[in-house]
């Protein structure tokens, strides 16, 4: 095997094993930073040894045993140092809780491996962390991405991400975040912050907020994978299935929503035969699970139900816009989000005509949260165009383009602005 192939093989093992490995180590050493260091050291050892010995029969157990030995070494050194200083508490290390003694580690390793992923995801998405920190830590600890990969995905310099991760680990230690996996209602209460992070990662891949590429499908895949894993771990949680359904359905359109030159194609213009039917079916199945578990429906399940309306329509003209409006009504009720209200306005315009839609959009113009949101003038421009007011429409679309941060999206808006004088546009702002 060539050197590159060998490294890739070890990386593949790492990707499969690292969440369980780090999660198990966190349980033992009760320190996220130390757990990751130990796991990384085990990986380095694997990279040195496996090329000559071959990948062991059970690579996960091998990595865990190697990391565990390091953990025991570390804790012995730590305890010795503490004895020398005559102190057992308040040391400079960031680990907290009583650091377990070496023999406890031996038993800890065999406990409840199924919880390790969950523990890690709850810690990485802990509410004490900023959203940015949660995203970086989740991709790093659970997605198995390197700092460099995360930096590339979010178009941020690598040191920024590295620092974000270091600071996040410190915050977790200082906040003395508990490492026990909560149960029942306590667990349910912690999930929204996890789901938010997964959907944020997905969305950054689905409609990149910055840069030249409109989509980064790898991020969508990472988020989807984590969502699918989570749904298996907490199968009784409706909103987890709701989020998975939403991501599956949106991902089913990935290959249809970008043109040959990388330009975005909006939902109603997409060739529906290019929608991925495997993902559509998975999405509808996940939605059915979510709906069976919850009354009333939560925000992700409602959004998935809206996406399902599109997935079920053979053509754009078959879309059940009245049902979509009803689902948006429920979603507005639940979220009180102006962005959701804007989406609802689009659905209303499709169901009941552009004039009614425009009225709703106009009511949102002074909304502070939408002040720099490019899709507000984008939608307004489309509705004005439909109503035969091309000059106002063009001005709005140009304003939308000036607000858009993504180059591809800006081009699309400008093209639509140019198109305003020649012919009427129809509003197609859901995607």
């Amino acid at each position, binding site marked *: 095997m060539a050197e590159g192939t060998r490294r890739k093989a070890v*990386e*593949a093992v790492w990707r499969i094993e690292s969440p369980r490995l780090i999660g198990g180590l966190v349980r033992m050493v009760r320190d996220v930073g130390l757990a990751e260091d130990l796991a990384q050291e085990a990986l380095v050892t694997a990279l040195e040894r496996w090329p000559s010995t071959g990948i062991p029969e059970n690579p996960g157990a091998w990595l865990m045993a190697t990391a565990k030995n390091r953990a025991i070494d570390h804790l012995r050194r730590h305890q010795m140092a503490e004895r020398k200083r005559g102190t057992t508490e308040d040391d400079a290390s960031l680990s907290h809780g009583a650091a377990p003694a070496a023999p406890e580690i031996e038993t800890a390793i065999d406990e409840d491996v199924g919880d390790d992923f969950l523990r890690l995801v709850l810690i990485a998405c802990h509410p004490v962390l900023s959203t940015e920190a949660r995203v970086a830590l989740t991709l790093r600890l659970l997605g198995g991405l390197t700092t460099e990969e995360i930096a590339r995905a979010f178009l941020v310099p690598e040191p920024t991400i590295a620092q974000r991760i270091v600071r996040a680990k410190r915050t977790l230690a200082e906040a003395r975040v508990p490492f026990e996996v909560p149960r029942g209602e306590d667990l349910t209460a912690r999930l929204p912050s996890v789901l938010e992070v997964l959907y944020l990662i997905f969305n950054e891949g689905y409609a990149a907020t910055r840069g030249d590429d409109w989509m980064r499908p790898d991020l969508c895949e990472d988020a989807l994978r984590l969502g*699918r894993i989570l749904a298996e771990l907490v199968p009784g949680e409706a909103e987890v299935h709701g989020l998975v359904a939403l991501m599956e359905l949106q991902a089913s359109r990935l290959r249809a929503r970008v*043109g040959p030159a990388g330009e975005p194609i909006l939902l109603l213009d997409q*060739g529906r035969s290019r929608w991925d039917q495997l993902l559509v079916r998975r999405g509808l199945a996940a939605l059915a699970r979510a709906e069976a578990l919850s009354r009333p429906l939560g925000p992700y399940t409602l959004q998935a139900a809206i996406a399902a309306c599109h997935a079920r329509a*053979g053509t754009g003209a078959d879309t059940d816009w009245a049902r979509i409006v009803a689902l948006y009504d429920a979603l507005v009720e639940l979220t009180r989000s102006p962005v959701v209200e804007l989406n609802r306005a689009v659905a209303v315009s499709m169901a009941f005509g552009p004039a009614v839609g425009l009225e709703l959009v106009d009511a949102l113009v002074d909304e502070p949260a939408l002040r720099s949101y490019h899709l507000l003038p984008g939608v307004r421009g489309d509705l004005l165009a439909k109503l035969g007011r091309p000059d106002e429409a063009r001005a709005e679309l140009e304003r939308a383009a000036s607000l858009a941060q993504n180059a591809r999206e800006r081009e699309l808006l400008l093209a639509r602005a140019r198109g305003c004088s020649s012919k009427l546009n129809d509003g197609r702002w859901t995607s």
Partner: protein
Amino acid sequence: MRVMVMVKATKNSEAGILPGDPRAPAAYEKLFQEMGKFNEELVKAGVMLAGDGLHPSSGGKRVRFSGGKRTVIDGPFAETKELVAGYWIWQVKSMEEALEWVRRCPDPMPGEESEIEIRPVFEADDFGKEFTPELRAQEERLRAEIERQRKS
């Protein structure tokens, strides 16, 4: 990336031998259980998108295309080793990851020599510039046609 993972047929799979069959090798007893566990692991890892086992080729048919002529051929088919006995669709990060998962797969055909084949699925990127506006227009026409037939 998405891959199709195919379990190739063997004499036993083509004979339709399932666990419990008196002709089945002893190791078949554990096979269903082990395969079930492996599948569960794949699902729990968010890797498996779909998968199924196939009936022996005696239950299948082939349609041969030759110069505008179509001929139906009844199974079973020869070249057992080239036939597919089951498949998965996996979502993985790399071919190496797919290989690592196959390495963990229990022997699908205990008592016989068998193969598992991994093939990457074409993705939009693979077509690159080939997917021209003309092709797209053609696809749109096709779609409209299907739609027309569906409604009539």
